[in-house]
């Protein structure tokens, strides 16, 4: 499987070339273009119950699409809904936990599971349902804005809206910033406190931050 990420960083799109027999799984609705000789199959993501729960609570799609090459090499392009960058991760040992909206596509050798973020995470919309990617192969993540990789050595604190993904070697708890007063008035919302050693990927903008800004401007 060959890939190239174009139009970085603001409006990135990934082009994937599949050799005969190769497949790639993608979030529903992200296909930009594809060769004619490609087989498409739509599957339920991460089991029925978790897919249903995600649909109900997370507003996410129930399904993934799997694109496969038959006899001839084919190409397919994927782009996320929002403006921003795409990164490629080479999965090998440590599984990666992904904020649901940041998953773009992955090789079918990458195994995806839905993970419940814990009851506390219900207050931070981003952390309720997370995807856990294990196995081997290419994984592509997208972000609103740019993506930055942080090496966490012991502890790190992140505004929950900026979370893209983290290595499973990290643990997190969801807390409010300071007292209730600062949660309400600081505009920082909830934070995710990461502990352990591992990589953390963050996005430089938050979709709901942009939406709240628009709401203040609109006559609604």
């Amino acid at each position, binding site marked *: 499987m060959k890939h190239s990420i174009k139009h970085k960083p*603001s409006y990135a*799109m990934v082009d994937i070339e599949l050799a005969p027999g190769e497949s790639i799984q993608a979030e529903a609705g992200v296909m*930009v*273009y594809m060769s004619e000789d490609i087989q498409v199959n739509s599957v339920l993501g991460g089991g029925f119950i978790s897919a249903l729960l995600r649909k109900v609570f997370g507003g996410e799609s129930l399904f993934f*699409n799997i694109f496969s090459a038959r006899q001839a090499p084919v190409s397919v392009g994927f782009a996320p809904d929002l403006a921003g960058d795409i990164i490629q991760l080479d999965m090998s040992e440590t599984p990666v936990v992904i904020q649901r909206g940041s998953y773009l596509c992955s090789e079918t050798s990458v195994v995806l599971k839905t993970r419940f973020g814990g009851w506390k995470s219900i207050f931070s919309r981003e952390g309720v349902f997370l995807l856990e990617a294990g196995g081997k192969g290419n994984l592509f993540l997208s972000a609103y804005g740019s993506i930055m990789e942080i090496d966490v050595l012991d502890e790190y604190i992140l505004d929950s809206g900026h979370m893209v993904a983290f290595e499973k070697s990290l643990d997190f708890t969801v807390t409010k910033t300071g007292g209730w007063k600062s949660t309400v008035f600081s505009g920082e919302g909830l934070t995710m406190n990461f502990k352990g050693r591992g990589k953390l990927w963050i996005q430089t903008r938050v979709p709901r931050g942009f939406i709240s800004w628009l709401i203040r401007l609109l006559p*609604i």
Partner: protein
Amino acid sequence: MKIDIKFKPGYAMATISLKEGDKIRAESGAMVAKSANVDMITEKTSRGGVLKSLKAAFFGGESFWMNLFSVKNGKGEVMLAPTLPGDIIEEELNNNVLYVQSTGFLAADAAIDIDTKFQGLRGFFSGESLFFLKLSGQGKILLSSYGGIEKRNVNGTFIVDTGHIVAFDETLNYQVTKFGSWKSFLIGGEGLVARFTGHGNVWIQSRNVPVLGQWLRNSLPPKKG
């Protein structure tokens, strides 16, 4: 007419240098700035009378009026930018025909004829407007995209999500069709796709305007009343 495109690819803007006799027609509202000796005339989209212009305004999704820029004496320049963030590219028509999705049109040499082609119910069915302007004649044109833009040479068959199409050559046949099998079409979240066959170019943008609209509608509180 010399065209210089700056600030690619996120927030591109085109500066058009005009000499006497040069005329460029741009989407209304696209002008950023111009030299004092550049004249601007506001005119109807197509030359075929009010009815044809109304058709362009209503079905083409483009403004009823376009602005025609020319220089009085000596040289002058006009700067043009589209509404959405994204790129601009320059192409040239040589008596060939190009279909441009209504939001992908920025400007064209005045020698280019602009007409509309109604795409019927298939566009309506997808909930995405699939209206194209038909550009023909000889001269330079400027296409704009939401996000990055790329030109793909099709030789055979190629499938593109309808919201990502900027333009395509008339030499290509196209058909709006469902994505994959019925199951994939209904649950795969891709909606309708365009299936291009033959030989020619198709211009693709890396983001999708209807998807942006959908995201905003889903995210913003419902309108009162």
